[in-house]
């Protein structure tokens, strides 16, 4: 009897906690549904519809928006993928080097200096970074000015970097600290015994980094890169402020379709393509995660 009551009470409490749990997540779910899922599905449908033939025909299903998107902006889609991939590779290398130095470095002063300095760009918004780069990377900008003062360049040898290179430089500068922060954290929590053992056996620091440390932080590195790729795919200010000329990134063309032609259909089609690209990246990551769990572990 007592047991039954206790059981009943436990059930009641669990139900109550389940209910309050639902109540707790409800605002977040509603928020996502109202401000993300609803507009997303709206855009998605819009990408696949065009105005009907007759004046009062309403809308009908069509792939015309996608045809136009590929016809006019095919180059830009490729350009976007290349820019983001190159940036991701550079960010990954930079983050491994920074994290590796902080984890394996021996000069305490330098390690601390790197630890403090590398995070600064985290606190600067993309639009500010883009505006700074616009004057920093220009042909007669600050960077070339300094190089000329140092005698490393003559004024005639200077070139501006306000093209794809400027976009990559800005992305790397802005996203490197974020990835480095996560990677450094993961490296700091590694069991140092493996590192010490490798060192005792005479492995150099680069070899320890590459063969011992990096494989262990790979999951963190990939999560950080996926997040960075998604962020870079969505930034408008950097490509528009550094180089708006064709080929440019897809975000610029989406804004252009809306601003110049009032054409949301093609802009949404580009949006869907952009989603598919980021979706593919996320899928590769998930697949890898599942394989990792089902495999050796």
């Amino acid at each position, binding site marked *: 009897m007592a047991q039954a009551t206790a059981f009943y009470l436990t059930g009641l409490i669990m139900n109550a906690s389940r209910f309050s749990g639902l109540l707790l997540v409800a605002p977040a779910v509603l928020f996502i549904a109202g401000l993300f899922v609803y507009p997303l599905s709206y855009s998605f449908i819009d990408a696949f519809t065009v105005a009907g033939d007759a004046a009062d025909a309403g809308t009908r299903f069509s792939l015309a928006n996608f045809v136009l998107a590929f016809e006019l902006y095919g180059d830009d889609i490729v350009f976007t993928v290349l820019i983001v991939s190159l940036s991701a590779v550079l960010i990954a290398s930079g983050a491994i080097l920074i994290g590796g130095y902080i984890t394996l470095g021996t000069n305490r002063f330098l390690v601390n200096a790197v630890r403090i300095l590398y995070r600064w760009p985290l606190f600067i918004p993309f639009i500010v970074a883009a505006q700074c780069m616009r004057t920093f990377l*220009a042909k007669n900008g600050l960077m070339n000015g300094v190089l000329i003062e140092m005698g490393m360049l003559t004024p005639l040898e200077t070139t501006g970097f306000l093209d794809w290179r400027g976009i990559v430089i800005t992305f790397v500068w802005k996203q490197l600290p974020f990835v480095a922060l996560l990677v450094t954290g993961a490296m700091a929590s590694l069991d140092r015994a493996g590192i010490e053992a490798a060192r005792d056996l005479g492995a150099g620091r680069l070899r320890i980094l590459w063969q011992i440390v990096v494989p262990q932080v790979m999951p963190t590195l990939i999560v950080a890169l996926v997040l960075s790729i998604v962020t870079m795919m969505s930034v408008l200010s950097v490509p528009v402020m550094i180089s708006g000329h*064709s080929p440019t990134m897809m975000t610029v063309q989406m*804004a252009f379709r809306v601003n110049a*032609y009032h054409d949301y259909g093609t802009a949404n089609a580009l949006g869907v393509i952009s989603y598919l690209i980021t979706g593919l990246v996320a899928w590769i990551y998930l697949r890898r995660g599942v394989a990792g769990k089902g495999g050796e572990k």
Partner: protein
Amino acid sequence: MKFKTLGFATTLAMAISAHAQAESILNVATAGSENMVEYVNQYLAPKFRELHPDVTVRVIGTGPGDAGSNAIMERLSAQKDAGASADIDVAVVHEKPVGKMVTDGLLAKYAASADTASLVSSDKAKNALGVDVEGYVMPMFQSQTAWAYHPALVSNPPKSYAELSDWVKENPGVFGYNGIRNGMSGVSFVNGWMYAFTGEADKMMKGPFDASLVGSEKWNAALADLKEFNKNVTFTPGNAGTLDMLNRGEIGIGPVWVDMFYSWQADGRVNPEIKLMLPEPGMPGQPMHYVIPETSKQRDLAVEFIELATSPEVQAHGIVEQFNWYPGIDAKYLESELSADVWDKLFADITPEDLATKSLSFPLVGYFDAILTSYERDVE
């Protein structure tokens, strides 16, 4: 203690709401860059407040370029569809979207009731890129694109599009513009190019729209030349980017907005030696228009606001003297208001005669969009 605070708060709230009831609010939405919001907020609103101490002018900036005007149009259109009255009383919009706003029945035909209507002489108040807008709009100002050049780098600038097209071959990279995606100075340059090399400027500005011109032999030839031309130019990042690059000496000549150029020069952001010129056969400029939504609840107050904004005094000191725009009303009504210095400065590089002959309008919406699409397809 708590009750005291509560009592104080209640009194305060009552006082505020009583105050709010006595005041009415005039909502002014303006498209355009920061300087537009600044002009309405810091110059026009306080002046209106002197006339109507009981009216608060609330200014909303909706963003630069046609996109800013589109935002106003979309809002008014949504409110119309919902059967609600507009929450905007006065709007400042660009030339391209205003025609659609008129044909969609979003705007009130108010100009006849404004005292200052007789001061407006520009054709642009009657026709906006092919759409009859007479009575629905009053121009706030005219702005104009032109070529800015640095005499130290380009001592003898090309005087026309035709000369420029040859000149860049000998001086590659010295001319810079911002393409079509990054500000209207580049779009204006491209439109000017099409006017110059198709020889159909008149048809493209005045209509009627003739679809056979798009994709015709001369149309395609002009675009092919532009593609060739683009190989020898520097691309700049935006309207501001062109001015920045001119200022740093990275390019020697490029298309800019006249008002932006003078404002930057006055702020010390552009080298004072850089000069302006209007090339043959001319370049487009555009007005910004004051409009009143059809369902604004404060029509009379809105008209009074626009009367103030288009009065010779405000046009002279606000539009011309402080913000370096060309006046929206006929310039002859400003002469008595302006000092000779200000007048001379405005017309130093580009004379009133230049403006009369070489200040063109943008093409009809049909040609406008066709030029952009052709540029995307055939030039880039």
